[in-house]
Every structure is written in structure tokens, then in C-alpha cells.
């Protein structure tokens, strides 16, 4: 992260102005630590919608123009086009905040991860839902011992249709190559489980559940 950004609101470029990009734009604008001023998306209507949401921001001529103005780049574009923007941002010394999954497949993700590791920039991946108040409170109950020994987890999802009505704009979500509920929803629960319960699962390994 460029030095000056650590002591003032961080200048942010948002690449990809679909559902997640617009949502992040709105909430970054509300947050005192972020200035999401530099936007880009190849879709003019998405750019137009973003400016209606946040007239203070600017649509840049290209993704690289947006990246060059920022200290932090948030990539909300589909996984298939994420790699070149991520590497360009890292090469410019920018911090990166990525939507998951960060690559279109495991090979691409491994390649992108190796590429980004050559730059000394902060990189984080967004699993928004794992930070909600309910899951945070559940974790606190577990830590206090209120739940006793943890015996297991059930994850149940049913939808009348996929993508859900509010996701129709993100057409790629319906395709096998990048979309689907497992990548889009179950991954949040698995991340929460992995990072918040992993240690506890190890602990209850000494408990005889029979």
C-alpha cells in the first residue's frame, strides 16, 4: 500500500460495476476509510447506473486509467477477466480486494496467486457473508462454551430458480464454467467454517461422540 494511503481515506478503483461492484461502491462511499472515486466497466449501462448511485465518482476511460489513480483496486468483474487487471494493479503497487473465486478455475487461480505473490502488496478475497452479525454471534456463543461440544454442521440451500431474481443481471452465474450456487453461496459457509471453526473441530477430535 502506498504510504500516504495508510493515514488517510484510501483511494479506490472499482473494476466491474455489476451487482457486487455497485453494492461495494455504495458501502465504500458510506465508510470513512474509503474513497471509491475511480470506476470502470465495459458495459455503458452499468457505468450509467453506478453514476446514478454515486455521482461523486468518475467513470474512467479504461481499467488501467482507474488503476493508475488508486491505492486500492477492488475487482468485481467476472473471474474470466480478472487476472490481467489484478496483475496490473499489483504491478502498480496497489492493494487488491478480489471477489471470489479469484480465478475461473483452479489452474488459473494457482497461476494468479503465484503471480500476485511476486509483488509485495496486500491482497484479500471477499467472502462478505461470513462477516455477518449472526455468524459472528454464533462464533461468540461457541467460544463461551454455550453450545457444549460441536457435533457437526448442516448446510441446507433450496432455491426455486438459479440465478435468483435479483441476480439476473449477472448472466455468468447460470453457467457451469463460472457460476452456480456452490461457488456463489456454499463457499461462504465453507470459508466461515474453515476459518472460524477449524480450531474447534480439531479440539473436539478428543471428544467421543459415540
Amino acid at each position: 500500500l502506498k504510504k500516504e494511503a495508510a493515514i488517510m481515506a484510501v483511494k479506490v478503483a472499482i473494476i466491474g460495476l455489476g451487482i457486487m461492484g455497485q453494492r461495494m461502491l455504495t458501502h465504500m462511499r458510506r465508510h470513512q476509510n474509503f474513497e471509491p472515486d475511480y470506476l470502470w466497466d465495459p458495459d455503458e449501462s452499468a457505468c450509467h447506473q453506478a453514476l446514478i448511485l454515486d455521482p461523486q465518482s468518475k467513470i474512467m476511460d479504461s481499467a488501467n486509467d482507474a488503476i493508475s489513480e488508486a491505492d486500492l483496486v477492488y475487482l468485481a468483474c467476472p473471474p474470466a477477466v480478472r487476472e490481467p487487471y489484478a496483475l496490473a494493479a499489483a504491478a502498480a503497487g496497489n492493494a487488491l480486494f478480489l471477489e471470489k473465486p479469484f480465478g475461473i478455475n483452479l489452474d488459473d487461480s494457482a497461476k494468479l496467486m503465484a503471480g500476485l505473490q511476486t509483488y509485495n502488496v496486500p491482497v484479500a478475497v471477499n467472502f462478505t457473508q461470513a462477516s455477518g452479525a449472526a455468524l459472528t454471534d454464533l462464533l461468540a456463543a461457541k467460544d463461551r462454551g454455550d453450545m457444549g461440544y460441536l457435533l457437526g454442521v448442516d448446510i441446507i440451500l433450496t432455491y426455486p430458480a438459479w440465478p435468483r431474481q435479483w441476480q439476473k443481471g449477472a448472466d455468468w452465474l447460470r453457467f457451469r464454467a463460472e457460476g452456480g450456487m456452490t461457488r456463489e453461496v456454499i463457499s461462504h459457509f465453507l470459508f466461515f467454517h474453515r476459518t472460524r471453526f477449524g480450531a474447534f473441530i480439531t479440539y473436539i477430535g478428543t471428544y467421543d461422540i459415540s
Partner: protein
Amino acid sequence: LGPLSLISAHTTYPDDPSLCETAVLARLESKTGQAVSILATIGGVQPDRQEFIVKGTKSSRRVTDFHKDAISDGGAFIALREPPKDPRAISLKAQLDDLSLHLAAKPNRLATMEEAFRIQTLVESILAKTL
């Protein structure tokens, strides 16, 4: 995935090979057999349902739609509080607070690339196991 292993998964796809999965049944286990069971389906006239249930010996907790919090001590699940009016705003604010910590090189709850890659590896393993 650290202490969990994928024991089995059956993922169902529609006839059109370009389209995503319509059902998932999967089981993951810790080394000593504690299970994470996944049931996910698409279709039928019904509301969206997203439940994450953690089962304990004293109480169990159910989180619905990522923000509705309920508890059971053996009886019906009882809501713990009024759900927030804008749960997404709370989640995103929390993510951005963590992002600020991350940029300041302080401890935070965001996923690292390595953690995200582990999750992606597991997810793709589930998606690859078809009936």
C-alpha cells in the same frame, strides 16, 4: 481444507452441459468423524432457503439467510433477536472494517489468497463429483 476432508459428493447438472449445477449432496468430515453435511437443490415453487446449522451438545444455532439467528436447546428453534433491517450493510461494513485493518497490516478476518484457494479447491472437488 485443514481438518475437513471431502468424503462424498453427488452433484447434478441439467442436460445442457453449459449450465450450472441444480443439486448438491455432499459430506465432509473431520479426522474424528464430525460431519459437515450439505444439501442444496434448485426448483419448485418455494421461497429461497439458506440455512447453516451448527449442532452442539448443549444448544444448536441456526443462521438463516446469513442474518437470522435462532437457537434450540432441544425444542423448536427460537429467534434470538429481530433481524437487522439491512443485513447486507452490516456485513459489508464489517468487511470494510476488516479491509482497513488488512491495509494497516493488522489482524483481520478477511480471506487470504491461500485460504480462498483452499475453499475453491474444495468447491471444485464437490462440483466435479457427478451422479
